[in-house]
């Protein structure tokens, strides 16, 4: 007789839904400073544990503690703080611009600013970044003109990519910012190829790429890890675990069984898991991975543990699937507030300076908006229609020539 139980399907569910009190008690958070910093030549097997710990530098009082403290000079930290403030101000303005009907779509990175800003500052523009739509901070940290970002968002006549892409799908080759694809995960593996090319050519550039927690389910993520490990590709593989993928919590991508960093272990990659809201921890971990990549020791996977504070996009309403105040209850705080507190503790910053910096950011964004909106918002201004038929190929064939004529341009 059969003595096994009836099989049943497990479908993961988050700890809270609308109306529930946010509950983060299940998170195992290491104390700041508690995780050791291995030498960059440590083998993946020797540092397995790091995939399950959480590297933190800033403590609750804003002091930098432990072996991962990158000991940054105050000026660098102030630059980082200002870039994060500017990123947030830009997001707020463009989210509003969408509400005002000036564009079709927008996506914010609220709460995740430390990641792209710190990493954008560490690597050079020669090192190609393969971002998702939530790394606008990379461009902002590198002083990319805000008005040009807006021109892209408005698909106006000065949009550098000629109105072809959905808003925020920037492309900025000179700033180490690869053209963003709307198709999730595809670029993760391309970054590995870019790094391999640098190695094939005996160059010194490395690649860096990002993927969301949800998108790690795509096959391309797994192909990327395989190729990166096999060829010891000079690339930094980030997983931005912001807990949500539109309405699906990270458990739907496998986050209940293990960490996203630990996905690297099976592929033989060194893995770090980092507090993504801690500017200094992000900085230190990225530097570790950078050194490894630059010295021919290959790729590192870094899970950046954070929280998506904003709706997924302007088309989304998170109050339908998660507790309303989850973001405020996030135990790892806000990256801007935490770096600010740290600088103030060092005597290198003040509330007044913060207020001033915030005002300055809003003013910068306003000035950029004036400049961009003078050219035009979506539909008011756009590139010439004939550009629709250009750059499909290096040279147009007869079909495109005929079709362009049919449109009369």
């Amino acid at each position: 007789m059969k003595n096994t139980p009836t099989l049943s399907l497990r479908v993961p569910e988050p700890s809270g839904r609308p109306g529930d009190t946010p509950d983060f008690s299940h998170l195992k958070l290491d104390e700041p400073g508690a995780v050791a910093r291995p030498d960059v030549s440590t083998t993946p097997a020797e540092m397995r544990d790091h995939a399950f710990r959480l590297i933190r530098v800033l403590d609750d009082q804003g002091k930098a503690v432990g072996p991962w403290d990158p000991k940054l000079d105050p000026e660098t930290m102030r630059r980082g703080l200002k870039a994060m403030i500017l990123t947030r101000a830009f997001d707020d303005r463009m989210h509003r611009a969408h509400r005002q009907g000036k564009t079709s779509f927008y996506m914010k990175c609220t709460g995740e600013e430390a990641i792209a800003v710190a990493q954008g500052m560490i690597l050079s523009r020669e090192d190609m970044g393969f971002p998702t739509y939530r790394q606008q901070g990379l461009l902002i940290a590198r002083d990319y003109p805000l008005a040009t970002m807006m021109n892209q968002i408005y698909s106006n006549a000065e949009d550098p990519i000629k109105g072809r892409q959905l808003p925020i799908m920037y492309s900025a080759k000179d700033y180490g910012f690869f053209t963003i694809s709307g198709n999730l995960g595809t670029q993760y593996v391309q970054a590995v190829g870019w790094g391999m090319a640098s190695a094939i050519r005996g160059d010194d550039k490395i690649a860096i790429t990002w993927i969301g927690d949800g998108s790690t389910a795509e096959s391309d993520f797994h192909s990327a890890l395989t190729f990166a490990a096999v060829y010891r590709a000079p690339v930094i593989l980030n997983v931005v675990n912001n807990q949500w993928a539109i309405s699906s919590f990270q458990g739907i991508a496998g986050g209940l069984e293990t960490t996203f960093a630990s996905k690297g272990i099976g592929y033989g990659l060194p893995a770090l898991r980092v507090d993504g809201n801690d500017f200094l921890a992000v900085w230190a971990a990225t530097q570790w991975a950078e050194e490894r990549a630059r010295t021919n020791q290959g790729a590192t996977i870094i899970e950046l543990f954070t929280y998506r504070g904003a709706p997924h996009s302007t088309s989304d309403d998170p109050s339908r699937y998660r507790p309303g105040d989850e973001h405020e209850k996030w135990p790892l705080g806000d990256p801007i507030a935490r770096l600010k507190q740290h600088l103030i503790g060092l005597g290198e910053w003040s509330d007044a300076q913060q207020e001033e910096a915030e005002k300055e950011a809003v003013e910068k964004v306003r000035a950029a908006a004036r400049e961009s909106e003078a050219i035009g918002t979506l539909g008011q201004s756009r590139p010439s229609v004939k550009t629709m038929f250009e750059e499909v190929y290096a040279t147009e064939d007869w079909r495109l020539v005929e079709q362009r004529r049919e449109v009369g341009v």
Partner: protein
Amino acid sequence: MAEINDKIEADMVDQKDAPASVAPDGPAIASMNMIQALNSALDVKMAEDPTVVSYGEDAGYFGGVFRVTDHLQKKHGLNRSFDAPISESGIVGTAIGMAAYGLRPVVEIQFADYIYPAYDQIVSEAAKMRYRSGGQFTTPMVVRSPYGGGIFGGQTHSQSPESLFTHIAGLKVVIPSNPYDAKGLLTAAIEDDDPVIFFEPKRLYNGPFDGWHEKPVSPWKAQELAQVPTGKYVEPIGKARVMKEGADVTILAYGTMVWVALAGAEHAGVDAEVIDLRTLVPLDIEAIEASVKKTGRCVIVHEAPKTSGFGGELSALVQERCFYHLEAPVARVTGWDTPYPHAFEWEYFPGPQRVADALKAVMTGGR
């Protein structure tokens, strides 16, 4: 201009107070938009047949980004309606396994533009399972996906990839153009013993869109084809619908373009017969042949790019079967052979003006 957002928000508002599910003692017919009609088809089939399961990205708890699977999890349980990891190949691959086991999975690919990671599973596996196993294994499953443009979605929320699937032996391809057909055809697709690719014209979810994009959006309510039985019914796969009878020219269209074709004919003042193909594979060749032999002229309209689009197949069939009845060359009105550009939505989208121009050309281009 915030059209994607408006669309999605409108969907949410529409759905919030009106779950379009069967109420045993409710009315037999209800006015439904396309989302509600599709939702009703799933709901009715899931209630009737315990082997039907529905899943996809955001399609469980939240009910899908377009709300088509709303309430299904609450009503039919986590086991039967759930969220999937963001892996289209995983979604379709597991559906194949389930179908081979004996379930009837209906999976959602969030946008047709994201179906490509699943292409291998669909083309090499689902389509060929029956044939290669000598009938031992079959894949009765439906892959649902919103497709098409008109919502300022840029190149990754606007594509019409139907011809990539009509080309594959073993797949059926269904595209409804209104709530009534959406429910009846989805029901038929779920009951079909072969894999069905079911594309939902997202621009039509909330109302018939005729391509005159500056006109205010009209709701489904006013349309006869939005009066939908709340209970079960089936619209057969493989049958076209004559949307409007006419004497002078046949327009072959499907999805959003059915409404654009009607508007184009009206604009041109031509007595066109508008045929909604509804199913691309298997195709209702009799309906096409009968109409073209009657009118002697044929204009084909689709949103997908021209080269190797389904219009090429239709044009060849018409030429093969109706050559001696044709008064003018068959014409195609299609999207251009470019990616779908964000800024040029309405230059790319083959609207009623282009349909009207083609109709006039066909009417005057006699032999």
